[in-house]
């Protein structure tokens, strides 16, 4: 054995020639338990961001005021018509619907199921997601049919100087 250890058998670079014992590389009980503990650690670490974001939401840090944004002039929107706009960011599609002379509702138009754009069907008086036929109530934004289970985020709007402005995104109650 000692003679074998002192000898350099061949030029190699992967250092696996010194594995001789039977099943040396097989996972034993202790090694497997170590893996289990490691997996528990991975679970613990990976659940941290969820907890952190949830805590942030609870403390209301994400409830911020966005700069008011003009959506459209009052005389451009007929009753029962809808206007697409972006709010609060450039890539957040939103939908403004004029229900009556005075009443405006606006929602983030990404479906709460798989983020497809929801559109307004005037004849049926419903907001419909084309992907899986989810339907939303126009008054409250809550889902009435199809796969979505959560309401669309409401955007508060304000009528000022003959135009409609988006004020902020309302947090919706679960």
């Amino acid at each position: 054995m000692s003679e074998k250890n002192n000898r350099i058998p061949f030029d190699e670079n992967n250092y696996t020639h010194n594995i001789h014992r039977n099943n040396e590389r097989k996972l034993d009980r202790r090694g497997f338990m170590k893996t289990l503990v490691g997996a528990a650690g991975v679970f613990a670490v990976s659940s941290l961001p969820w907890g952190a974001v949830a805590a942030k939401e609870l403390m209301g840090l994400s409830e911020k005021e966005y700069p008011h944004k003009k959506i459209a002039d009052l005389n451009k929107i007929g009753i029962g018509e809808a206007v697409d706009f972006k709010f609060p960011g450039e890539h957040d599609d939103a939908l403004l619907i004029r229900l009556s002379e005075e009443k405006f509702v606006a929602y983030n138009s990404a479906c709460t199921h798989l983020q497809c754009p929801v559109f307004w069907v005037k004849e049926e008086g419903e907001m419909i997601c084309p992907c899986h036929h989810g339907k939303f109530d126009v008054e409250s934004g809550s889902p009435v049919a199809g796969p979505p289970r959560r309401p669309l985020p409401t955007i508060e709007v304000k009528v000022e100087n003959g135009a409609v402005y988006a004020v902020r995104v309302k947090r919706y109650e679960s």
Partner: protein
Amino acid sequence: MNRRLVNFISLLICLFLNIVFTQKMVHQFKFENYDVAIMYCVLNLILFPIALFVFKRDEKQSEVNRREQ
């Protein structure tokens, strides 16, 4: 029952609970029940020291067993 088996099975249960809590946490987060999501997150965090404790205890017991033999 064999002590080694008890340790092993309790580790398996820890991991199983980890999976369950993670699933619940993500769901409750999506449902916006943030306090419940935080609760599951804390449970997940607590499970790791428990698993580590079980592993260390197993190590210690097998050491004792080896000396007795």
